[in-house]
């Protein structure tokens, strides 16, 4: 993963994560955008490498061009700037389900070695959870139906767990062949982008493998932040630091001083 000319300036780990996520959207047509980090990254992609990227929000807006990332997935600016606004049932049935969207962009509370995602409960019991999370939202069908899925979340042992407490959205299930057996038609998670680096499922084992480290991060740090014995790609790369333009656009997008 190579990037444009580095900025030379300072940037945060979150900024690196968002920039890396935005870069991954280059060459894609349409992105189903989850709330939060995915929304910032998708909007940054439109301002940097992929101005034609079609942003699809589950609230029903297709082709939204917000000037800043919405707090919710249904802010007014999304409808005002969209190519078209459809009902929520139409969004899920006509647009998401048939595999018309090429990238689904999700966050997660927990993710496991096979990139299965938990956004439902933390703890052993669904009925008596330690922490009740928001739940599924659009994620299970985004993870099932988009041609590819990117996941973006901060790296840490409480998030990167050997096995998610609750399988809200299926990544690669129990490993090779799982998605096919379940009849899931998209390829599932192909990239997990964190504040430390980038992980991809190993083509043979489906286990998430470290493929890139961000500037200044070591393999040991990434492995310590992962709750399973993280495999490292033999071709481990270094993410290019954010360029001046990327950083300026990101900060402008967030309404921060650059």
């Amino acid at each position: 993963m190579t990037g444009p000319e580095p900025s030379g300036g300072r940037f945060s780990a979150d900024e690196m994560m968002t920039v890396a996520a935005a870069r991954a959207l280059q060459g894609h047509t349409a992105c189903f955008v989850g709330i939060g980090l995915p929304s910032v990254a998708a909007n940054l992609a439109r301002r940097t490498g992929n101005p034609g990227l079609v942003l699809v929000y589950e609230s029903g807006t297709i082709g939204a061009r917000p000037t800043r990332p919405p707090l919710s997935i249904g802010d007014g600016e999304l409808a005002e700037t969209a190519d078209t606004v459809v009902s929520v049932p139409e969004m899920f049935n006509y647009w998401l389900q048939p595999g018309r969207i090429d990238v689904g962009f999700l966050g997660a509370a927990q993710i496991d070695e096979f990139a299965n995602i938990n956004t439902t409960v933390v703890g052993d019991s669904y009925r008596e959870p330690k922490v009740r999370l928001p739940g599924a939202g659009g994620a299970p069908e985004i993870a099932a139906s988009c041609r590819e899925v990117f996941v973006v979340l901060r790296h840490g042992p409480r998030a990167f767990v050997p096995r998610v407490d609750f399988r809200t959205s299926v990544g690669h299930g129990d490993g090779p062949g799982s998605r096919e057996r379940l009849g899931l038609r998209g390829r599932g998670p192909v990239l997990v982008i964190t504040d430390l680096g980038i992980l991809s499922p190993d083509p043979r084992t489906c286990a998430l493998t470290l493929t890139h480290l961000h500037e200044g991060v070591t393999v040991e740090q990434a492995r310590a932040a992962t709750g399973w014995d993280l495999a490292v790609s033999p071709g481990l790369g270094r993410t290019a630091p954010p360029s001046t333009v990327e950083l300026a656009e990101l900060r402008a997008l967030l309404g921060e001083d650059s």
Partner: protein
Amino acid sequence: MNVSEGVGWALAELMTLPEAVAALVHDGDTVALEGFTHLIPVAAGHEIIRQRRRGLTLVRMTPDIVYDQLIGAGCATKLIFSWGGNPGVGSLHRFRDAVERQWPGPLELEEHSHAGMANRYVAGASGLPFAVLRGYRGTDLPAQTDTIKPIECPFTGEVLTAVPALNPDVAIVHAQRADRRGNVQLWGITGVQKEAVLAASRSLVTVEEVVDELDPRPGGVVLPSWVVTAVAEVPGGARPSYAQGYYDRDNDHYRAWDAISRDRAAFTAWLDAL
């Protein structure tokens, strides 16, 4: 449930909000307040709290702060939903307190994905007992409910997922406008509101204003008066969410709710002041 028994014969009645909630929402009812981020019927939710309804099954794709308030106020014994959070901010702490610590009482959950909930409303609006989707396969959701089942395509043999229709006793939505005959018009992000109203036995629409004539709007959805039970004029009735063309989303209010919601005492003070 036969939709044709309950819907669509008389024209909608124009009422005040307290009258409408008193007439339409009863203890023990299944009540859906819909509005996907936009046009959330918050004022109607507050009126339900004020009228101290109990034992409600609350239905909503995206329970947000008005459902946090209804749950914290003890109106609900069950929640049918797909995503319960404060969008862009974090948890719904009253919801979490009910689920994690049964305060102010236990809350039964019937949990789905957005795709499942949307299709349950579609089936309800269509007079069908169930809907079919590609969904849930391989997830842990089906094990927690009897409302997700496999179904086989009679032509290809492929196995898909069925979910049962949602037919609330009452659907409550907020819209920009109604005319004096009770025809309702909304535009912008219209979510699942049409389906919720058409699926329900009774419906209440709060509106920003009642006008003489509904001039056509791009992206507008019209609910004819004869499928609506009651219309109440409630300017600002969607705040702190927004009404496109009237006012913007009050993002600060959503952020401020976090602190109130985290603390039982702060919440109780909020409730007493409502």
